[in-house]
């Protein structure tokens, strides 16, 4: 097993909401104690519904947000505070790929200027050398040379995402977080962009965290998957194991919702109850109001993530769940 590139320990993030005139604040816990290890050269998938805190987790892994608790270690060193010089320097090594490429691009700059911008910011290359690297980057992500002088709105959604990817790769980063990189794209384009990311990962040995609510995509690209529910990881396992034999009731519901060719959605588990709302977290196991196997104990105790062979699972009654699965 390769060395960890990035480690998260006990990450917590809270947001203040609805501040009244008298300064009363209520806080919402978006991320509630996450331990995570990202190994060199792997693609770690993070899945969960909206509101599960997966994007917040991604931003903390990159150091874009300072966690309210816990720490992130990159290559063994703690993450510098945002917007300091050390932090800015570190940006060359870790990059984010956005959900909405049109919003992430400056509509008044040519795509060439934008792809080359990181080289300028970090003083990596100038003049002819920069032009050469720009051409190489564009070729690598599959953009045509004549598109260099175009503006973002003149490109298609898939091409824009290629521009964002090229910009992210400009500094040869070691670590990439892709936050729902394809969910804003047409289904027909999604596969192309996912394949591009996978090819790049294989060619360069990139380490990636791939955040998505789309399990098909995650299964397609990830080596390992962590499932999040209301700010906590409920199950984490190698991709093949997780999809073949999901254990946590929530994971099982998610996996059962993936359509299989020729089978339709037979055996799909429909979740009951309210969708997760971080502002009203249930006591005990956050999933218990929607869990078919929950009993009184589940409402009282918060399950810890525990090793079970190649996987980790946070469930108080994994055996009950497993029994029905068999």
């Amino acid at each position, binding site marked *: 097993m390769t060395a960890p590139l990035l480690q998260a320990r006990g990450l917590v993030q809270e947001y203040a909401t609805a501040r009244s005139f008298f300064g009363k604040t209520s806080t919402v816990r978006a991320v509630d104690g996450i331990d995570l290890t990202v190994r060199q050269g792997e693609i770690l998938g993070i899945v969960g519904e909206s509101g599960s805190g997966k994007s917040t987790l991604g931003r903390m892994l*990159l150091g*874009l947000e300072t966690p309210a608790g816990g720490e992130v270690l990159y290559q063994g060193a703690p993450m510098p505070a945002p*917007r300091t010089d050390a*932090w*800015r*320097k*570190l*940006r*060359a090594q870790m*990059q*984010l790929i*956005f959900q*909405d490429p049109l*919003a*992430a*691009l*400056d*509509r*008044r*700059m040519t795509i060439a200027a934008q792809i080359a*911008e*990181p080289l300028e*910011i*970090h003083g990596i290359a100038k003049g002819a050398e920069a032009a050469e690297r720009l051409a190489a980057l564009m070729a690598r992500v599959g953009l045509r040379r004549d598109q260099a002088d175009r*503006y973002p*709105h*003149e490109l298609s959604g898939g091409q824009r995402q290629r521009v*964002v990817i090229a*910009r992210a790769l400009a500094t040869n980063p070691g670590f990439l977080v892709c936050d729902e990189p394809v969910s804003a794209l047409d289904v027909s384009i999604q596969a192309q962009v996912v394949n591009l990311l996978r090819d790049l990962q294989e060619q360069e040995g990139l380490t990636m965290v791939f955040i998505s609510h789309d399990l098909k995509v995650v299964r397609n690209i990830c080596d390992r998957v962590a499932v999040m529910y209301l700010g906590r990881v409920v199950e984490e396992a190698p991709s093949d194991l997780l999809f073949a034999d999901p254990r946590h009731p929530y994971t099982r519901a998610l996996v059962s919702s993936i359509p299989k060719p020729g089978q339709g959605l037979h055996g799909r588990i429909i979740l009951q109850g309210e969708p997760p709302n971080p502002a009203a977290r249930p006591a005990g196991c956050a999933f218990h109001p929607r869990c078919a196997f929950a009993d009184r104990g589940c409402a009282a105790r918060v399950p810890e993530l525990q090793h079970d062979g190649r996987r980790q699972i946070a469930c108080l009654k994994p055996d009950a769940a497993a029994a029905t699965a068999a």
Partner: protein
Amino acid sequence: MTDATLTAPRPGIITRMRLKMPFLVVLSSGWIIAMVLVAIFADLLRPYEITQMNLSARLVPMGTPGHLLGTDELGRDMLSRLIQSIRVSLVIAFGATILSALFGTTLGFLAAQFRGWVEHVVMALADFQAALPFMIMSLAVLAFFGSSMVLLVCLMGFYGWERYARIARGLAISASAQGYAAAVVQLGAKPSRVYLRHILPNVASTLIVSMTLTFPEIILMESGLSFLGLGVQPPQTSLGNLVGFGREYLTRAPWIMLAPSVVIVLTTLSISLLGDWLRDRLDPTIR
């Protein structure tokens, strides 16, 4: 940087340009260019010195040979005085517009960058500015300090700063929240780069439109103050001074007041029309 928008092809601009009052806009632009040329070449165009008196030709009406726009009660040539006034009024309005745009945009960006108490202070000042009639504040300042050219430009330079501050802050915050600015920050760019290379070019068109809307208001404000005798002081003269001065001779020599009035109205009208047109073209989102 703004020419990016102008060159970026957008469907329908040409057709829409043809549809809506192109003639008026062309006319307005022509008038503005003429006024700017008059202001620049005032010294060459002026037939007489503005203070040159000719007591044998006092209150000569319009159309008199040698005094196209007539003379005032000291026999000073009105055309020469008008040309000089155009220069003074335009210089004040131009300087003040730039000052207020710079000041307001800077404060707006600072508010967006630092948030917290900086933002609160900037916004409280903007509210304060918007809550008070500018004319009254200017009058108070002029009362305390007395009038001078530099003070007048600086004072007018505060006119409308809160609009730029609000626009700049709002656009910068929305850009930093999840948009292109956040993306560039995330690339490791320093704030100076984020604001000057990315946010400023993106908000420039809105700010320029705002400037074309503020400019005529500043001309009106300055000429209003000068009309009251509290703005530009003699022997220097501005369009407002001429009108205020002409008021004394309204019955005997109405031309003294008419020529500068026409210039004020046509200039503010032209810039407003051009500004409206620009706003519709460049910024369909704000109204």
